[in-house]
Every structure is written in C-alpha cells, then in structure tokens.
C-alpha cells in the first residue's frame, strides 16, 4: 500500500527488472512488504492533468436550454472528497424550479420531441454520444474530482460506457416498432429521473438515453455530492443543439428529488439509489398513474468453489468489492467461499490487497480512491464497528491514509455469520464479509438469504454447475467467472428489494414506453 506517497519505484524504474525474479521470490518479497507496511511496487506519481477541465465558480440549473440560478437563489457547495477542497457552488433547486423544469419538459414534449420522427431524435443522441467521446478526458477528470473515484476507472469505465449507452439507444429511436412491444409503442411524457453519486455520468446516461430514444423528455436530478458531470452533460446537450426543454438538469438534495417525483406533471419516475429511498418513492407515487422503475441496493454473494482457479477468483473478488471503493449497488460484498479452500483464498486475497494502491484519484496508478462524502464514510465506519462488536474478525492491509479527504482502507471481515449486520446490510464501501459453505445447495441457500437480489458471482471450472447455479440464484445479473461487467446491450436490474424494471438492452426500453 503506497498510500499515495511520492516515492520512486524500484520495479517500474528499472524497466522490467522484476521480470527476472522467480515467482517464488516475488511472493516472498511481497509477503515481507505486506508485513512491513511497504509495498515492493512503489510507483512514481502519475497524475492526470487537471488542466483539461475548467470548473466554474458557480453553476445554475439547466432548464429550457439555459443555465440560471435557483428561483430563491439558494446554492450549495460540491467538494472534492479526496481533499475536501470546495470545487464549485451549485444552485439548489426548489419547488418553483421543479415546476419550471417540468413545464419546460412538457412543452418540449408536446411541441417538439414527441412529433419529431424517431430518425431525427436518433441523430441528436448520436451527437451527444460523439461529443462524450470527444470530451472523454475532460469528463473523466471532472468525474474523479467530484466523485473521488480513480481516474483509471472514470477514464476506462464510466465515460466510455456512458457514451456507448447513448450510442446504443440512439439506434433504437427509429426502430421502436420492431422492439417487440407491439406495432406502435409510444412515449410516456415527462420523465423525472433521480440518480446516485456512485457513477454520476454513467447513471445520467442510463436514464437519459433510453428515455429520449423512446420519445420522452427528461428532468434529471443528479446526486447532491456529484452534480458537475451532469451539468457538463447539459452543456453537451446545448452544444448538440438539443431542443430546449428536452433535457433539464436540476441540482439539489433529497428535497429536490422528492419534489420532482411527486410533481403532478411527471408521467414517469426512474430512481437509482438506496432501497430505503426507493420505498419512499414507491409510496409517493402510490395512487397516481406514474410509471415507476427502481434500481436499488444489493448485498451480492460472490461464490467461490474449490475447483475455481484461485488467482482468477481473487482478482474477481477484488474487482467485485473494491471496484469504485465498493460504492456499487451490485458489489460482491458477501464472499461465499467453499470451506475446503477458504483459508487459501483468504490468504491470497490478503496478499493481493496489500498490493492495491490507495490515494490520489487523479493518479493513473491509483486502485482505490476516496470515499464520496463524510456522511458515507461515517456510515461505513459505523457498520464496520458493528461488525467487530458482533464478533467478526477485521483485517486491513497496512495502509497509510492521506491526511485530508475521506478515506477508508480495504477491509475484510472473516468469521462472519449470516445474522451479522455486515452480512445483511448494504455497506456501500470497500468492506468484504467472508462466509463459508460446504455444498452447492448451501451456497444457493446462503446466497439467496437476503431481501435484495441484484447480482451474484460464481467462480468454478465446472460448466454444469455454473448453469445450475445461474438458474437457482435469485438475482438480476449473474457473473460467472467474471464480475462487475456492464454493457449498454445487457439488461441490468434486480429482483425483490433491489428494485424493478431493467436498464440496458431492449428490455430497458420498456421502462419508457406505454407498454
């Protein structure tokens, strides 16, 4: 764990000298390093330049094609979670702003977007996709600054996938009658969309692209702590010449989102976030004709069998729970490992974790970035405290945390039982709970023993077992011998209390059509 220290790396500095070492030597050295708190893999700082982004001191709301302050003038600060440095003041939308945005969206829907041929709508979406690709580096840096995620994730995952999502749904806009929903599927009207802070731009793309392709207009409410890339996307919409009011962006906190979903002018509500808030939204739209889709929390089981290739499984476990600091609704937060290999899997996992680099999100070598907010850090801290109090064994690699900002080391709990809160509740942080099983039936029973049902992982060499498990697991996405893969053509969404509706693929259109 380098802790983001500026130190030249013997390995990277000597141009592949490490390749000469035998595997055994490498293992011995990295074990020593893990024990001493020093990593053999020291890397020189490799920060991505901030210059590609110009952050304005203040941002307005994007309504009817223009940026303007909130009606009551309220603003709030968005900060860089890695440094606690304020990045900008952002307008806080109140009820009057919600009303104005919904009205703008309604006007655009009736007068422009609904009558427009699908082939024309498609071309706007292609324009947006292309501009996201052209300005990808700018978006990636801005995302890492506002969210705290490592630049290599925002650069290689968030932004390219967001662009791909617009590209994918652009092609549906003029083919809806062939999508399997009948000969003449129509849009719903105005969509109110509330998204979380873990993948700010990607979630905006997941919401806007299918809605616009289907012919709806949108009022998007980004998360309070990560408004900046949604506002830059609004600028992209402007530059793409998207007619005013087709996309509106309202920044604000929970009260803004609540006002949006309960606004009578909204025909469709889409929410991604916590199960708790999802239930509140379901209550808020009860008794109305609003169509609702929810993508909520998860507590996924990542199941490792004794015949799985251990090194591959360990990589999958790491990717499953430490990708994006564990701020992932489908994170593999419960490791279910077969008892006979539990010791070796945990040992190899710990050894691998000792090589992860935590620190500056803009450093291209960083594996683990900052926790998104003080509030989230407090929640993770509290639940891990409960994990210890309930008797599970806590482990983290030697890890120096930066002095400023919100940080939490990768953490593994062993000796976890199903009744422990860290095995039942979504922590939404870099915290893994390890449980064991003996038989495939027991693995299924434990994996399904949750009110959630978003995702699951399977690691085994046996094909028939993969297919059997994939059928038995009550989860919307099953990754076999891989984890945390996403694609615009692949439907994503949960069973049970992980929500309803799917995003991505042909299935994702249904949420925005009157079918």
């Amino acid at each position, binding site marked *: 764990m380098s802790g983001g220290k500026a130190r030249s790396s013997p390995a990277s500095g000597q141009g592949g000298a490490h390749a000469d070492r035998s595997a055994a030597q490498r293992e011995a050295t990295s074990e020593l390093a893990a024990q001493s708190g020093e990593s053999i893999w020291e890397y020189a700082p490799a920060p991505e330049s901030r210059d590609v982004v110009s952050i304005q001191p203040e941002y307005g709301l994007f309504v009817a094609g223009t940026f303007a302050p909130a009606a009551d003038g309220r603003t709030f600060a968005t900060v860089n979670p890695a440094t606690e440095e304020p990045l900008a003041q952002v307008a806080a939308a109140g009820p009057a702003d919600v009303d104005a945005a919904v009205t703008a969206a309604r006007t655009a829907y009736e007068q422009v977007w609904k009558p427009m041929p699908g082939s024309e709508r498609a071309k706007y979406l292609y324009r947006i996709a292309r501009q996201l690709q052209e300005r990808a580096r700018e978006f990636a840096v801005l995302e890492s600054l506002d969210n705290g995620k490592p630049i290599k994730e925002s650069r290689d995952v968030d932004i390219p996938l967001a662009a791909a999502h617009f590209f994918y749904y652009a092609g549906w806009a003029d083919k809806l009658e062939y999508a399997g929903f009948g000969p003449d599927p129509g849009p719903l009207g105005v969509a109110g969309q509330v998204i979380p802070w873990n993948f700010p731009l990607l979630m905006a793309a997941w919401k806007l692209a299918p809605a616009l392709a289907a012919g709806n207009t949108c009022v998007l409410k980004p998360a309070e702590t990560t408004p900046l890339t949604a506002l830059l996307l609004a600028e992209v919409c402007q530059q793409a010449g998207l007619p005013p009011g087709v996309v509106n962006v309202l920044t604000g906190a929970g009260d803004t989102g609540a006002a949006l979903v309960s606004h009578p002018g909204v025909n469709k509500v889409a929410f991604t976030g916590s199960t708790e808030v999802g239930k509140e939204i379901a209550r808020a739209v009860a008794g109305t004709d609003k169509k609702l889709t929810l993508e909520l929390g998860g507590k996924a089981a990542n199941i490792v069998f004794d015949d799985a290739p251990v090194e591959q499984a360990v990589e999958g476990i790491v990717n499953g729970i430490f990708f994006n600091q564990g701020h992932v609704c489908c994170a593999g937060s419960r490791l279910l490992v077969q008892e006979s290999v539990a010791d070796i899997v945990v040992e190899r996992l710990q050894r691998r974790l000792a090589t992860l680099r935590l620190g500056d999100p803009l450093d291209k070598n960083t594996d683990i970035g900052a926790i998104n907010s003080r509030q989230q850090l407090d929640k993770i801290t509290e639940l891990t405290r409960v994990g210890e109090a309930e008797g599970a064994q806590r482990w983290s690699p030697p890890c120096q945390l930066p002095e400023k900002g919100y940080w939490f080391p990768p953490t593994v709990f062993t000796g976890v039982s199903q009744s422990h809160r860290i095995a039942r509740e979504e922590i939404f942080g870099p915290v893994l709970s390890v449980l064991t099983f003996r038989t495939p039936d027991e693995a299924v029973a434990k994996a399904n023993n949750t009110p959630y049902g978003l995702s699951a992982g399977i690691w085994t060499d046996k094909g028939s077992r993969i297919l059997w498990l994939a059928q038995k697991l009550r989860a919307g996405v099953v990754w076999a011998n891989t984890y945390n893969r996403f694609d615009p053509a*692949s439907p994503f969404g949960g069973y049970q209390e992980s929500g309803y509706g799917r995003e991505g693929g042909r299935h994702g259109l249904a949420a925005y059509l009157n079918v």
Partner: protein
Amino acid sequence: MSESPARLNVRKTYKLFIGGAFPRSESGRSYPVHGNDGALLAYAAQGSRKDARDAVVAARKAFGGWSGATAYNRGQILYRVAEMLEGRAAQFAAEVAAADGGQAAQAEAEVAAAIDRWVWYAGWSDKVAQVAGAANPVAGPYFNFSVPEPTGVVAIVAPADASLLGLVSVVAPVIVTGNTAVVVASESRPLPAISLAEVLATSDLPAGVVNVLTGRTAELAPVLAGHMDVNAIDLTGIEPQERKPLQELAAGNVKRVTCGNDHWAAPPGTQRLMSFLEIKTVWHPAGT
C-alpha cells in the same frame, strides 16, 4: 300411479383452497352469497387474515417446485386444466349465470371464452422465454444472455365482476411462467372461483400453486399487500380510487404492482404474462 317425491339435490359447501386442500376459514366465519337475482346461492367461507398468511406460506412452499418444473410440464398441466374445465362447462355456465346474471347463452359464451383463454395461456409456457429472453451482443469477449424468470409469490385481487372469465384472465398468466398465486376471489361472486379450485385440484397442478381465498376484499387485500413474503400484487379487482393505500403497503418490500384495466372479452395480449417476470442476465467469459 303415485308420484314419487322429486329427488332432493345435494348442495355443495364452498370452502377455501389452500395448499391443495379445501379448509374452512380458521376463523369459523362464513357469509351469504346471493345471485344476481337476489336469491341465496350458498354460504362462502369468510377468509381471515390468518387464512391469507397460511395461503402465502403454501404458495411459497410450492414456488421452488413449480418454478423449477420444465416449461413443457407446466404447459401440459395448464392444458389439462382447460380439459377439466371443458368437462364441467355446463356446471360453470350455471354458476356464472347465477353469479353474473344475464342470458344462459351469454354465460355459456363466457365459459367457452374462459376455457379458450386457458388454452391460449397454456401454450405460452415454453414460448415466453424465447419472446422475452435475448442473447446480448456485448462489446467484449463474453457470452451474455437474458432469460425471464417468475417473480415469485403473486397476490391477485380478482375482478369483482366477470366471475370466471376475469378470474381465469388474471390467474393463468401468473402461474404459466412459474409463479405461485394467492387469489382473493370476487367478494360478491366467489362461487365460480371455488369451483375453479376444484378443477385445479384435479388437474395435477401441485398443491399451493394456486390458493383461493373468499371473504371480504377489504380485510384480505391489505394483508397480502403488506405481506413481506409476497413479491408482486395485482390490484385489478380494486377500484382505482381505493388502490393508493394498498400500493403504499406494497412499497414495504418493493412489490411489483399491477393495476389492470382489461376488457375481458378482448384478446389479452402479453402484458399480464410479462408483468410477473424478472429478467435475469448471465455473463460468462469466452476464451480458449
């Protein structure tokens, strides 16, 4: 020549249908059911909150087996239900005429439509996955496919009118895909629902796949809407202005809520069939 007295007919006791058995309500209550002309037809069991919870337990117990059965097997059993209905068509026509009123020919037509609808849905069992599933062309070396799976235990408030056709139209699309159901029968016209349960009980449908409650909708529906082991609820039988509190209860465990506005005589389409499915997407790397 002395006239022998007319034979006294044997009347039926209408009970609940839970876990494949026909119990009375555990509460011991019953309520009178009147025909469209006001005549007393029978006493139906007035199911209690406990009966509703028992029915959910039975439906949950049946879910693993029914959802795990092959689509072909489910299709065979549902077709068998249609066969059994056909054999009892005259009985159902009489019950529907008594419950819904109208001409005998109208009741016969409704029974025929109900049987045909059951056949239509039976055929969907091994086709829905091909219509609702997909192989997804993801941008990477992965095999990725999506399949529809049953949502789980579905509570259904059956339509208050259309005592047989409406009932069949809401139950068949739920169970054909592997869901199990707890059905609240029409409060004022519950008798055809219990007779349908007798058909289901003799069609090799496993116990608990369909459970039928009769009684007060206002008493039973909130129990099912708020039940934490019910995955979805169909509020078709609830008046639109009375749905809100039930939808609020349903939010407690993120139930899927369907509010139908069907015209029972029209072709049903696939909307109900698709409403109680979960799409599962599976990824696997492709490589040597």
